[in-house]
């Protein structure tokens, strides 16, 4: 049975730090979605940077790739309201939580789905998250194509975190950089970092 809104409120609103609160919210949503027989949602975008940098970067909403119907069913039960033409935005005033649904599958493809990481939280809860490699490329794309001045810096921060867990597959990063036309941006980033996985 899905946790009730009251239970979710009780669990989340006692967490003071909004960064931790968002992480535990996604973990609870993931647990409920898995119980419904679908795969766990994948955290992408700014929320993925927030999680990997453990709150150094902060975001206001949660970018998710998820099975829409299962997610919607749970969010409605938890008091969320959907907005936008295709109900992309889900907002809860009670929980002070904002979900941006970006589709069911990763744009990066099947391989990216197999490379996702799992973050183990307290109480056995887990969050599925875009791989370090695909997030780095995502940020480089944001820097190049969206003209987002900050994204290159956060790509660099994600590289540093990945290096600490020896988790960076540079062959895959380069392959993805070529596919997304951000090779020059990647080379510039590597030249300015201590990446030891060249």
């Amino acid at each position, binding site marked *: 049975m899905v946790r009730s809104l009251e239970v979710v409120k009780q669990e989340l609103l006692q967490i003071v730090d909004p960064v931790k609160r968002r992480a535990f919210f996604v973990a609870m949503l993931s647990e409920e979605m898995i119980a419904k027989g679908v795969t766990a949602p994948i955290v992408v975008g700014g929320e993925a940077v927030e999680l990997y940098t453990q709150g150094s970067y902060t975001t206001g909403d949660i970018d998710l790739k998820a099975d829409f119907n299962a997610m919607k069913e749970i969010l409605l039960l938890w008091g969320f309201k959907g907005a936008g033409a295709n109900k992309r935005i889900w907002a809860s005033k009670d929980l002070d939580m904002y979900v941006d649904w970006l589709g069911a599958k990763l744009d990066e493809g099947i391989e990216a789905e197999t490379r996702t990481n799992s973050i183990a939280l*307290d109480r056995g809860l887990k969050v599925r998250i875009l791989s370090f490699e695909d997030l780095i490329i995502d940020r480089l794309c944001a820097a190049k194509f969206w003209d987002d001045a900050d994204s290159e810096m956060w790509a660099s921060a994600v590289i540093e975190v990945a290096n600490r867990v020896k988790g960076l597959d540079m062959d895959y990063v380069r392959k993805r950089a070529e596919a997304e036309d951000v090779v020059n941006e990647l080379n510039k980033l590597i030249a300015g970092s201590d990446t030891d996985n060249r």
Partner: protein
Amino acid sequence: MEIEYEELRRIAATSMFERSLAGLRPAKRRRKPRDPEKVQLLMMKSRNVADKFPPSRSEDGALVLPYFSRVDLA
């Protein structure tokens, strides 16, 4: 003027909720480049957090980010 923090938080949360439902979401991109010192400061913050909460992997391959392993209660 003195503003009570909880009141400010309540107003901000209401505004965020209403703007989200109206499709007015905050811009996620920054067009103005930060100055190099600010970039350095943010990178230093990120490194310090990773030093204080060193990431690792558990036996089953899950990523352990210690910042999230302890929940601060109110």
